[in-house]
């Protein structure tokens, strides 16, 4: 169901090439990974520790651990998953030291509608729970200027999300991980994963709607 997803940005070579590059000290390989993965890694780290500076240190310590451990990497998971797991372990330890152990699972808001209930017909209506007015269709963004504005709108919306929603959204819709992988990495249930992802997407959709049509979501 990820047909609509296009991979953009940095093109990362296959794991064999990457692992060989890291083992032999190929700087181009490492620079490519730094460019491609650092943003997601920062976001992931930031969900465990209390400051951006602390998250940067987690990312840094992760890479140092990767340099140490790459000789022992056996390829049972993808390289990126292996790196992300190291990061989560380091971030968890650090969070314990910072006494900031907020369990992921306790913070999922459920049963709060993701679309304003005012947009649906009330219980006394002939069609309760039906749209009062359909959402407006959005224009395509063929022009570069519009596409650029859409990207900044989306980026700002993502930044404004609670950090756990940001992390799940980043792993799923930017990194392209599947639901199972995200659950395993973050040690959260399928239900929590889905609630976080859906709330995140619904919020970003609302921002886009406001941008495209001027209607509040």
């Amino acid at each position, binding site marked *: *169901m990820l047909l*609509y*997803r*296009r*991979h*953009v*940005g940095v093109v990362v070579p296959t794991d064999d090439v990457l692992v060989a590059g890291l*083992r*032999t*000290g190929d*700087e181009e390989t*490492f*620079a490519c990974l*730094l460019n491609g993965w*650092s*943003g*997601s890694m*920062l*976001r992931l780290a930031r969900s465990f520790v209390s400051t951006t500076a602390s998250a*940067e240190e987690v*990312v*840094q310590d992760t*890479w*140092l651990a990767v*340099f140490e451990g790459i000789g022992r990497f056996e390829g049972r998971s993808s390289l990126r998953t292996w790196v992300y797991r190291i990061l989560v372990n380091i971030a968890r330890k650090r969070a314990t030291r910072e006494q900031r152990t907020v369990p992921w699972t306790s913070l999922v808001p459920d049963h709060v*509608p*993701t*679309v304003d*209930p005012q947009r*649906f017909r009330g219980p006394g209506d002939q*069609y*309760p*729970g*039906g*749209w009062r007015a*359909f*959402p*407006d*269709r*959005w224009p395509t963004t063929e022009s570069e200027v519009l596409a650029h504005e*859409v*990207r900044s709108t*989306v*980026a700002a919306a*993502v930044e404004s999300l609670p950090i756990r929603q940001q992390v799940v959204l*980043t792993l*799923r*819709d*930017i990194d*392209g991980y599947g*639901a199972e992988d995200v659950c395993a990495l973050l040690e959260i249930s*399928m239900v929590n994963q*889905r609630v976080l*992802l*859906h709330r995140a*997407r*619904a919020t*970003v*959709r609302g921002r*886009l709607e406001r941008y495209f049509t001027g209607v509040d979501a």
Partner: protein
Amino acid sequence: MTCEELVELVTAYLDGALDPETEQRFVEHLELCDGCEIYVEQIRRTAAEVGQVEPEDLSAETRDRLLEAFRSFPR
């Protein structure tokens, strides 16, 4: 299934995670309801637009420090 219920199930639907009976009701509703068809398409579009976002980056100092650490790492 009402529109108000459907909008909460879109991500589960896109992940193929609905039970067969709920999925059938979801699909049947979608075939008849332009509003929900638009909504589902917009969630898809949103996920695709999110995929275009470049996440924030490491500070230049951390980046330089890591490149240097990689260069000088004993192999």
